[in-house]
């Protein structure tokens, strides 16, 4: 997967000083980072294998400043890359050498908490977990909980439509936000949604969510708040094999139960977790399924008994049910530490993110294993089993010649396999630059052109985060062209864009 980004425009590079100076007319000078050493801090996101030094970093603090920066970019024909906390695993916030990196970290205030309407208005740079921290005293929380939640921002969550272990039952970011304020390329400020449900006309709020910073800059988010369930209990279910674990997952759902969390780890991950920070997972298990059931105590007790029964019938080696909050958290501790733990068993890893129809799990894992063996690499698996979202961690050693390339190749093969069995290239991390060149596996040219036409409606010059998501950039004029029949264009009097 040799990655090519759009070539930096020499005309822009040569005007760097002017661009910096113009930005300093908009922002306090200290909020414009031009110094090379300071810019280095922004040269990559969590997909660290790709790096680029941004032309300049701008750190706006107000919507008016964002709007002015966008207008300036339009005037000077400069590109912009929005960035939250930079935890994107798909390179979504990878800077451009001829682009302004728009860091949203100063947008870090919670503007309003409205318990009556069960929502909060927050700035995009607020960390995901900070929202829950601000409302938990009243028994509320913000449901989407990516593992990166102490670091990642709500703006980045909107960009990537982030999810977490709760999203099987409580939905992704898209199901948990009510409103956005966005600034378009050109500087117009728009409000989408609010404290009410559903938009009229087109659901641009839904479209913005997961658009990977390509359509507009998010300057405010209205999130839904949920009440904390009265109780939550965990079940730790070791199985002799991944197949048996997968059957148990299917059986739970077939019984009509949607758990608050339903996760699985394979033997490689269990081993890694136990040597990183032991939390009592049985090392002889081929797979561990963790189930969390939440709700009223009576309901949870009832469901715990049902799930235990299902697990036994599917061949669980034992069934552990949490008897205290501390024990429930201990069950989760290993799962939550899976990524750092795996990085201790191999010097580097590449975290893939594909979704498959759940029942294809055993088949996909077997074939994945075969692919890995064929190129001499190891794969550890943790997955959001309830919704078929896989995170194969490909272990490699960046200091070994050719290892990176082999890891990338294996990653691409795994994602192709996901698509082949009816799944998708990415379940929650986004396409970014990482999976950009694989988009053709899922979509044909017409599908991709239609998506790019949507981009053109927001950003006709392709100046907002270009080079991400789409394998080839088409000019909007060319995408706007109509199919001409018998040499004549229908409705000649209608304006075309």
């Amino acid at each position, binding site marked *: 997967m040799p990655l090519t980004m759009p070539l930096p425009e020499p005309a822009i590079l040569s005007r760097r000083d002017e661009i910096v100076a113009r930005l300093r007319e908009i922002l306090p000078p200290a909020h414009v980072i031009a110094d090379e050493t300071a810019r280095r801090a922004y040269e990559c996101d969590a997909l660290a294998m790709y790096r680029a030094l941004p032309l300049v970093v701008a750190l706006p603090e107000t919507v008016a400043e964002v709007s002015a920066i966008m207008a300036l970019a339009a005037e000077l024909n400069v590109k912009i890359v929005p960035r939250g906390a930079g935890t994107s695993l798909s390179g979504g916030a990878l800077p451009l050498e001829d682009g302004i990196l728009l860091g949203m970290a100063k947008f870090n205030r919670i503007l309003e908490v409205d318990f009556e309407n069960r929502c909060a208005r927050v700035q995009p740079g607020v960390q995901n977990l900070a929202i829950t921290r601000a409302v938990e005293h009243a028994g509320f929380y913000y449901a989407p909980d990516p593992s990166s939640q102490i670091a990642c921002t709500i703006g980045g969550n909107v960009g990537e439509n982030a999810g977490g272990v709760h999203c099987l039952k409580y939905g992704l970011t898209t199901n948990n936000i009510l409103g956005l304020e966005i600034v*378009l390329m050109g500087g117009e400020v728009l409000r989408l949604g609010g404290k009410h449900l559903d938009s009229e006309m087109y659901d641009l709020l839904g479209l913005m969510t997961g658009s990977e910073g390509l359509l507009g800059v998010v300057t405010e988010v209205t999130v839904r708040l949920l009440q904390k369930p009265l109780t939550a209990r965990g079940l730790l279910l070791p199985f002799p094999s991944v197949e048996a674990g997968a059957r148990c997952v299917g059986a739970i759902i077939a019984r009509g139960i949607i758990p608050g969390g339903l996760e699985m780890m394979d033997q490689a991950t269990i081993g890694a977790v136990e040597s990183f920070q032991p939390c009592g997972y049985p090392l002889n298990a081929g797979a561990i399924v963790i189930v969390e059931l939440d709700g009223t105590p009576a*309901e949870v007790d009832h469901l715990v008994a049902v799930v235990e029964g299902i697990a036994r019938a599917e061949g669980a080696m034992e069934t552990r049910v949490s008897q205290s909050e501390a024990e429930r958290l201990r069950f989760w501790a290993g799962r939550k530490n899976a990524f750092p733990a795996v990085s201790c068993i191999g010097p580097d890893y590449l975290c893939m993110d594909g979704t498959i*129809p759940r029942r294809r799990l055993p088949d996909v894992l077997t074939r994945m294993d075969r692919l890995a063996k064929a190129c001499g690499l190891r794969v550890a698996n943790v997955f959001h089993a309830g919704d078929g979202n896989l995170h194969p961690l490909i272990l490699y050693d960046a200091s070994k010649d050719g290892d990176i390339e082999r890891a990338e190749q294996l990653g691409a093969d795994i994602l192709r396999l996901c698509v082949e069995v009816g799944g998708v290239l990415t379940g929650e991390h986004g396409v970014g630059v990482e999976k950009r060149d694989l988009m053709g596996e899922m979509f044909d040219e017409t599908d991709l052109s239609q998506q790019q036409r*949507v981009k053109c409606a927001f950003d006709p010059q392709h100046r907002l985060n270009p080079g991400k998501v789409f394998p080839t950039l088409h000019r909007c004029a060319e995408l706007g062209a109509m*199919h001409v029949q018998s040499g004549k264009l229908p409705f000649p009097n209608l304006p075309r*864009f």
Partner: protein
Amino acid sequence: MTPSPRDETDVRDAIRDALAAETPLAIRGHGSKAGLGRAAAPAQILSLAALSGVTLYEPEELVLTARAGTPLREIVALLDAHRQQLAFEPMDHALLLGGARDDATIGGVVAVNASGPRRIKAGAARDHLLGFRCVTGRGEIVKSGGRVMKNVTGYDLSKLVAGSYGTLAVLTETTFKVLPQAETEQTLLLSGLGEEKGLAALRKASGSPYEVSSLAFDPRENIAALRLEGPEISVVKRRDDLVALLAPLGAAAQTLEAESSRAFWMRLRDGEPVAAGEGVVWRISLAPSDGFTFVESLRRNGAPLLAHVYDWAGGLVWLRLEAAPDAHAGAIRAVVDRLGGHATLIRADEATRATVDVFHPQPAALAALTRRVKDAFDPLHILERGRMRADF
């Protein structure tokens, strides 16, 4: 002649023919609501009724795919047999708009982003649409999304087509997330609280941990209604807890058991409290705490209110008012604009719908963007011209 495509290629050909002949198309599922939306110029009808059938249903995967013209009742019956459901409760408009009961197609349900009382907990059609195939106004076959629960590959065009009233593309196939039906349900009815206190009680309950899945207030009978769904043991317990939580209000409490509970919410879903009788009907979405303020402002301004009901804990208001040349759009929208939200004219005669914006007007910059999105799918405005906006 009305083209009745039998497959996706037929749909594409019909649209290409329409483009060549410069004939705008109106898309019909079952056509039961043909006279609604903005009163638009007559157009050739493209009927999707022949494009019918469930093509994939995997109960254990919680996924179902159906061709766009599939009758909703067929899908509901199939899901029922497996104790599953479309959790967003698409409404039946026959009570409100006339026509036969149970006559919607799944494409129409998506096209209007249908949802019922459970919207506040379970989401609307937009939240359950995993993917789709369609033919755009350019005459191109396009797919988006997939059939799996989690997918962020490319833009989420499902959100765009849900609620687009056929103005962007003709859906040919839709894939949904389906969910288990609750084991049982009960509805707690609190009577005698009055509108303001009743609505406050709903908000209090919706902020409680008892997982109330629907909350409505019906002023005709002065009752607040709270629906609880789940395993029997849990429903009973949560009902008791709710009664205790709301006891200080001093209302008389009564419980509707499963069957009456279901019937109650179905009537509300279908707009029964405002349906009967003359007048124009509006549907307003706002912040729950603004529901009562909104109705009070209208009353204070002397609007001739005939009937109203609150759903979504006060966040959805259905209104019936005496007919008027502008259907009271000015008065209603002035209040909604002050509070934040949107108002849709659901029922009015054709002359009114030709002059009044049926959908809530947008600020200029948003309207311009909306128009560019429309043009991205249908630059020649061949689909449902004039149905949502006078300018497209």
